[in-house]
Every structure is written in C-alpha cells, then in structure tokens.
C-alpha cells in the first residue's frame, strides 16, 4: 500500500501538482488518469523520489518516504519497479543484459541463478527468442514487455507504470494491460499506472484517481466512473464516440 498526503509540486513558481491525497492498494491496479499535461508523470516521479516534493508526505506501507535517509532510500528503491513511458531500455545492452541488470547490481545470486531468474521473467512476460537482440530491433510491444520484465526481476513490492500502452495498437495495448494486472495479482504488488486510455480504465481500473490541472477531482473505480454526474469526468470518459454509444445503450437498457 502507498499513501500520499497533500502532495504539492511547483516548477518555477508554477503549481503543477496541488494538494493530492489518496491511497493505492496492494494487489490492485491503481490508475492515475487525466489529460496529457494534467500532471500524471510529475505525480509519479514525486512518489518515486525522482522529483522533490514541495509539500506533503508519502508512505510506503506505513514507512515514511524520506529522500535524505540514503540507506533507507536505497532499500526502498530495491522494492520498486518502474516501466517508463518510452520503455527506457538501455540501448547499449541486449535484452538479456537489460533484464538481468538490476540483479547484477543488487543481488548476491550466482551468475547461473541470475540467468535462471532472468529467463523466468522473460517467459512470464511471454517473450521468445529475444535474449540477444538489442532494444532497437524490437517492436513497441516487445519493448514494453522487456521493460516490464526488468521492472519485476527483483520481485518488487511496488510497480509504477507510466502510460504503459502509449504508442501501442489497441490489441497489444490491452494485452499489456492484462499482463500488468495478472502480475499485480500474482505477486501481490501495489501497482500504479498512469493512463489516459479509457480502454485501460475499463479493463483494469480497480481504483482510479482523476487529475485535472494537477488537482485530484474524483476517485473511485471503473464501475463508478460510468455513472458519475461530474461534468469534467463525463467530458473525459465520453470524449470518444464509442463510449457515448455505450452510455446510450445502457440508458436504453434501463
């Protein structure tokens, strides 16, 4: 579980994130949704400590996140995995080297054990025959899988995904969403996902917080989001014709 209280963050005196509080549950896929530029990435980077927050507190399973305490931070970092928007694979390394990288850095396993564990997660994300390929030789969907594999190789307690299906075709996008969801349940991870994709919201939105211009204006789950009267949410949810039709269909049914 991750709890955030009254988080605020400014750049050059310009408030990007303001007064956000919520909790993200274990074993669930927690979504942060909102338009591009609404502050999803900034909020996530604040939680990861990649950006310093101006106000507020962050708790990882009741342990307060404190960037100053270097050894505690290092410990916590080993329990975090992150899938970046552009995958952020290391260009200069093969797929196998990318995925084994966190193990090489932090585990005391023997080389054979490390390779075994790496192959295990490669299988888990349904990749085949890619060990010696380089990131530039992979499709977008495969890169995402490699990024997920690298993020989970150390068995993290917390998994962060920044728009994991951006740039993917709709079918691959759903497959990646489902993969993240399965992994979340299987390893009982607290997973946080940034997205603006309504398909993901419906598919994996166990818990959703909705950001508008850096403020949380709604929270709930993927059933509640279809039935709220909030205008801003409706604008977001029903921006696509498909969802408008779904709503009409539901109305007619009732």
């Amino acid at each position, binding site marked *: 579980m991750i709890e955030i209280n009254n988080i605020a963050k400014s750049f050059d005196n310009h408030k990007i994130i303001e007064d956000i509080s919520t909790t993200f549950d274990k074993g669930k896929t927690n979504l942060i949704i909102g338009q591009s530029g609404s502050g999803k990435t900034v909020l996530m*980077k604040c939680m990861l400590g990649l950006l310093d927050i101006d106000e507020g507190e962050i708790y990882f399973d009741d342990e307060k996140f404190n960037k100053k305490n270097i050894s505690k931070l*290092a410990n916590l*970092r080993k329990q975090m995995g992150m899938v970046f928007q552009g995958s*952020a694979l290391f260009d200069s390394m093969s797929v196998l080297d990318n995925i084994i*990288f966190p193990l090489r*850095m*932090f585990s005391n396993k023997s080389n054979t054990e490390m390779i075994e564990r790496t192959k295990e997660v490669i299988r888990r994300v349904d990749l085949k025959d890619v060990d010696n390929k380089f990131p530039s030789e992979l499709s977008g969907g495969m890169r995402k899988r490699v990024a997920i594999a690298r993020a989970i190789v150390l068995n993290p307690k917390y998994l962060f995904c920044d728009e994991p299906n951006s740039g993917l075709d709709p079918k691959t996008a759903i497959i990646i969403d489902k993969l993240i969801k399965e992994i979340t349940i299987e390893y009982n991870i607290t997973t946080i996902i940034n997205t603006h994709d309504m398909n993901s919201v419906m598919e994996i939105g166990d818990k959703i917080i909705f950001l508008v211009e850096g403020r949380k204006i709604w929270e709930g789950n993927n059933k509640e989001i279809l039935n709220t009267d909030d205008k801003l949410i409706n604008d977001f949810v029903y921006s696509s014709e498909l969802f408008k039709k779904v709503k009409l269909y539901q109305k007619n049914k009732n």
Partner: protein
Amino acid sequence: MRLFFHIGRYFLMIKSTFTKFTKWSVLQKLIFQEIDDLIIGSIWIVAFMSFLVGGVVAIQTALNIESPFLPGNLIGFATRQSVILEFAPTLISIIMAGKVGSFITSSIGTMRVTEQIDALEVMGINSLNYLIFPKIISLMLYPFLITLAMFLGILGGYIASVYAGFSTSFDFIQGIQLDFKVFHVVYAYIKTTLFAFILATIPSYHGFFMKGGALEVGKASNVSFVWTSIVIIIINFVITQLLLA
C-alpha cells in the same frame, strides 16, 4: 548570473560522481568499454592529424626562416617545441572536444531524454557515478594518446623536412635534441591530464542536465563542444602563465 549557477552545479556534479559507488564488477566493465570508445577509438584520427600537422609545422618553419645565417638544426628544434608544448596537448584536445566530447554529450543526453537516467535512479543507482566515473578513469589514459601525438608529430616534421630537402637528417635530429628541458615535457603532461578531466566532465555535464528531445541533444553537443574548447583554452593560458612565464 547563469554562469555561476552552471559552475556551481558542475562542481556539485563532480562531487556526487565520487560518492555512492556502483558495484566494482560493473564499473570495471564500463571502464573497459569507455577505454574502447574514447581512447582506442581515437587513435587513428589523433595519429593522422599529428603526423600531418607535424609535417606542416616543419615546412612552415623552414619556409619562413630560410636564411643562411640561421643554424640548420632550427627546423627540428622549432618542430619539437611547437609539437610538445602546444600542438599535441592543446590542439589535439580541442579536436578531441569535438570527437570524444560530442560523443559523450550525445550519448548521455540521449539517455536523459529517453529516461534511461531516470531508470538508473529508480533502481537506486547513482547515475552520475555510473555514467561519469568510468569516463574520467578511462580518460586518464589520455596522456598515452598525447604521447603518440608528440611522437608522430615530430616524425611527420622529420619526414617532411628531410624528404622535401629543407633539412638534413643529422641537422633535424640534432635540433630535436637541442636544449631539451624535461620540465617542458612535465608541463605538457600536466596540461594533458587536466584536459583529460575537462574532456570527460564538461561534455558529461551538458548531456546529463539537458532538457528536451532529440533536437536538443544535437544542440547540447554543439554547446558542449564550444564550452569544452573555451575551458581548454583558458586553462592552457593559466597553466602556461603559472608554469612557464
């Protein structure tokens, strides 16, 4: 002022580079990789440039001082002095600011814009140590490159002047040995070592702190080249004042 902000942040970067070390087995591999990219990868261009410029220096000296009253060993002497004191350490370093410097800026800059540096940080790795320390260490081999430049520069001068008939082999070699001061070589290597540090760190700074996308990576490489060259020239001036004046 902006400049002071950059200078301050540069020194903080250097300080952080030497804290929270990456696992030694990993660093070792990175260092070998950097030696390959930065040092071995530069041997040919350095060899080629030094040999030819050494030749040009000798010919220019010969053409400009042709006078029966000047001793024949002057060409060898002048070539040795210009190659060891300025050409090899300073001019080659400015060429390297273009070659190695822009390589460093663009490779670190690309890692920044594609969030690879964030990925390192999230894993709990000190990205400054991981990225910059191996570059500094591998560039400590830079004096070998400059030694090669000195040797080939003088050899180029010898071949050019002897085969073009400006000097006899005997005169040229006597010129090389004339009034040889060990301190001049020491001075050249002190400069070289400082330049090596500059070549590793200023381009890294420009890559590490860049913002934007692919276009900005190109711009950062340009700016990095300009600043690396300027700093090399300023340091050259200061060191020369301190040690030789």
